[in-house]
């Protein structure tokens, strides 16, 4: 509050802004706010929102790039709502996100709690590094490797299951199994990241509270349920939201592994949109799918945040 007052007052605007009053500081902070968000907002407007509006505008047109767009009103949307493949793709996406996120959160949290309690530093280093390594691989590597490993007749997984007496599983061509294969691949690839986030959360739990709980006689599951999980709930919310957002966009690996097959059993909404736009040259229809996806995600995120107010515990 001191330094501002000494500066020479050059013009009215500066004077208005630099006034050494609560009002002046409030104005300064508002201006600073606009300055701070300007780079981001300009970038987002130009490279995401603008193109997005263009895309959404296209959903009322028929366009294959070669010929000028032709206005078709709601034709793309009426096709969309009568297309059973769209429903399947939404169902698959929903199932994939739920399966993947549930597996990810449970396994990662269990790993974090276990690694945190390890006494040996080298061991904990070893585990931390092993779990994180797949995060560093590219989608191409994952697709080639797991595509081979999941092969029914030549893959490693069925080979070892076979040694245990388990009959061959058609990981990539059985409609009832393929979502699990895709989900497991995604879990494998992202586990390390979620794990690190939980490890950070677990490590920063206040030890006094944990010890107090121990004195009170809370052990094992009970302590986990009544003390650890509530304390971790902000971390859980954060990791879950991050993972859901990632899952909705990270579909390279399943795309390369199964091409959405067999039939439509592993086709997601983003894949359907991509195939319609670039494969079938139906850019208008692809845009309509993107628009509906956008609306659904917005709804889901809203619900998630509304629900989180009930169960997330802030100390």
């Amino acid at each position, binding site marked *: 509050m001191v330094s501002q007052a000494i500066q020479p007052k050059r013009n009215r605007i500066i004077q208005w802004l630099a006034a050494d009053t609560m009002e002046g500081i409030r104005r300064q902070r508002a201006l600073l706010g606009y300055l701070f968000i300007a780079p981001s907002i300009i970038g987002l407007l130009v490279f995401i929102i603008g193109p997005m509006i263009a895309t959404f505008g296209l959903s009322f047109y028929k366009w294959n*790039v070669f010929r000028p767009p032709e206005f078709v009103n709601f034709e793309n949307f009426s096709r969309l709502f009568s297309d059973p493949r769209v429903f399947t793709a939404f169902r698959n996406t929903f199932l994939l996100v739920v399966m993947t996120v549930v597996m990810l959160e449970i396994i990662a949290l269990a790993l974090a709690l276990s690694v945190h309690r390890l006494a040996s530093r080298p061991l904990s280093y070893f585990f931390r590094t092993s779990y994180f390594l797949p995060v560093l691989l590219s989608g191409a590597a994952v697709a080639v490797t797991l595509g081979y490993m999941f092969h029914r007749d030549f893959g490693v997984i069925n080979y070892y299951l076979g040694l245990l007496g388990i009959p061959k599983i058609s990981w990539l061509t059985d409609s009832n199994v393929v979502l699990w294969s895709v989900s497991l691949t995604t879990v494998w690839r992202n586990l390390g990241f979620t794990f690190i986030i939980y490890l950070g959360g677990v490590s920063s739990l206040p030890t006094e509270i944990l010890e107090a709980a121990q004195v009170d006689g809370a052990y094992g599951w009970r302590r986990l349920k009544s003390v650890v999980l509530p304390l971790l709930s902000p971390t859980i919310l954060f990791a879950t939201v991050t993972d859901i957002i990632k899952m909705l966009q990270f579909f390279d690996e399943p795309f390369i592994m199964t091409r959405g097959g067999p039939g439509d059993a592993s086709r997601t909404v983003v894949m359907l949109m991509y195939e319609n736009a670039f494969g079938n040259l139906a850019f208008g229809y692809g845009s309509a799918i993107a628009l509906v996806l956008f609306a659904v995600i917005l709804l889901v995120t809203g619900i998630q945040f509304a629900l989180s107010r009930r169960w997330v515990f802030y100390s």
Partner: protein
Amino acid sequence: MSTKISRREMLKLTAASAVAMSTGLVSSTKIFAAPPGQETITLRFQENEQYYADVVEAFKQQFPNVNIEYVTVTGIDHAEVASKILAQLAAGTPVDIGYAATEATQLYAGEGLALPLTQRVLDSKEELAEYFADVSPVLTETMMYEGDLYQLPRDFNAANMYFNTELLAKAGLEMPPAEWTKDDFVEYARAMTGIDGSYGYGWTNRLWGSWTPWFFVNNTNFLVEERAPGGEWMWETFYADDPKAQGRGGGWRWPAPQANNPEMLEALEFVVSLTRDGLTPEVGMGTGETLTGFFTSGKLGMTPAGGFWSGNLYNQGMPKDAFDVQFWPAWKSQRHQLGVGAAWILNGSQHEDEAWEFVKFTCKKEIMEICGLFNPVTLTTPVRRSMNNEARYSVTGPANWQVFYATLDERPDTGPIPAPVFSIEMTDIYTRFTGLAVNGDMTPQEALDGMQAELEALYARQ
């Protein structure tokens, strides 16, 4: 305390990356700079420099004022390649010379993107006579659309049957004769199954070389095939003496779907029975790289592939006598399916004339011989009959290399995979229902009925 250390570390990291950035900027100004404006003419050419460096070098010696700028497309499927080409088109910066295989030939021709070459070909009659005399009319016809020629064929691949000769020997069999049949094939597949975990016959679910060869030899197709009128200019000018050019037209048309006809059903039931009887391993979706791996590792006795496999198997270290090739087995006919690839010229390019000179140049025999796709090994089959010779395949194999071109010369009813303007969406429908039949979710009849229904809806939308 720890806050301070990690903050200092962070600053260091930031500083280090800033230095790395700026040195990167200085040393790599070239990669940041937009391509410089040329005094000479620049042709944007959709190809991989790896294969065309020598060709372009030779071209520049003859045409020093023409510069070739590569537009490298690394997409792994047609949708990816299309996404790039279309984005450039939408931005008003398309390539001057593109590349398309049969899958996209009619798309670019039908949408007016590719320049019809008919008049230019006729104007260069003397120059091109030697070329067409060396190229089967089967290939030329595939590159025509509604009477006009759009591309000068460069490479082709017909689906022949590849054999792992080591498995063949272990099964106590010899290479079959050219006239072998579907029933002989089943015997071969059975004999080569179960040798150290091997399967007699493997394939990948896609359009080319999938189960497509089976309905071709069963004399049918999932789309009605017919010849467009026109094209006499081509056959009379360049193929007047060639009896195999008799009865050809102005390119292929696929006016309607017929996926659930009895011959299609018979072919699909046959293919599904191979899987059911354990002669074929799991059929995946894909581009074929696992198929190559399984074949070279001795897991597959037979598989569909074309001349492009000779150089690729060699590159993977497969000895030249470890594999061989034969015609596709005969059923109701021995008609093969093929795909042809070539350059096309942008309709409305500012440099149509130079682009045409370049395309003609790349079709000369001595130039094709130095193209990286055909030299040092055969990565795809050259369209010139005279280039399919003993010397070409002596290092890489296969021993029976004559089959590649004989598929055109001795089986002149060989035709292209179905690829109308909307071939990508069509392929999606085809592979989707194929997958559902092969994995047993649907009976062959149900799958073909479903395929037919969706194809009809697709035709109705056009």
